[in-house]
């Protein structure tokens, strides 16, 4: 469900790639508004298969907080203790926009190479 299994050496390369990209996926999830931490983590892990386990997202969130790309706010909950919500900051929004523009050309270049490899086979 959450874990991706890839053969041999591809695993470490993809996990590094995923690690670098995951932070921008967090920002992307926050683009449309604040998110409850638990939901954010679960959605990242479940819907996109981007993380190896839910717990490993929390260190990343802490780094994003430190970076000033996201901020947190406590909100009262009807059914339990206060909940921590994450919001995208202006700096985070800029970082996301920068990444999005880079990602387009990056993805296109990789796709072109992969496609040409396939056509050779």
């Amino acid at each position, binding site marked *: 469900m959450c874990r991706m299994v890839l053969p041999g050496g591809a695993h470490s390369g993809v996990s590094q790639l995923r690690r670098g990209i995951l932070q921008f996926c967090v920002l992307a999830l926050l683009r449309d508004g604040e998110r409850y931490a*638990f939901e954010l983590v679960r959605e990242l892990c479940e819907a996109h298969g981007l993380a190896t386990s839910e717990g490993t997202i929390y260190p990343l969130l*802490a780094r994003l907080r430190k970076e000033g790309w996201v901020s947190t706010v406590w909100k009262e909950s009807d059914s339990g203790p206060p909940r921590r919500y994450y919001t995208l900051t202006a700096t985070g929004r800029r970082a996301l926009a920068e990444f999005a523009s880079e990602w387009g050309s990056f993805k296109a270049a990789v796709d072109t190479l992969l496609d040409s490899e396939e056509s050779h086979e």
Partner: protein
Amino acid sequence: MTTRRNRLIDEYLQRFDNASVFLAADRREELRQEILEHIDAGLEEADALHAAATRAVLDRLGPPADIVAAELNGPRSTGSTPVVELPVLAADMAPKHETNDRASHVRQTPDDVPALPVASPPIRKGVTLLLIGAAAAFAVGALTFGVSTDSGDPQQQSPAIVEETSMSPSPSGESDSEPPTGAPTDDTTPVPPSDEPSEPLYDPTAPPSSGS
């Protein structure tokens, strides 16, 4: 049922505590709190308080060692990755031992300790043993050397003997039993932490001491 659920959570948190002793204290506490919130939210979402639901939430959360590894292996450029500060560690570990002792039986899972921290306790112990061994060899050597020089030329004493005489006022210190063991011990004890007293040091030197 609730007791079993709580035990699962307690054990998980204990595993986290064991795996995260090398994190900065404030960051460790913060991360622990986030994990706890996640567990609560997961149980709330599952709308079930039985052990199976708890186990599922904990499984999705992943091994505590992975969480700590993510904390240690993340990109350093943000400056938020806690620095592993060795001098702080000894102090950090001391109060944590109290909580860890309570459920030390839980620590049977070897995967709980991340790569970096797992190396340090054995290394520390190894260094301590090495120092103790060196001190014992030093003490025995000093004793032997002291006996041989005593019979020959009492004026030409080695620096080791000088150190011993500084501890014991009498020049025939090797027969006073205690000072020869005391001097090397004092030389080496500042380095290792105090959790391993230098009892083994006394073993090699005890026979000559008690014998005389």
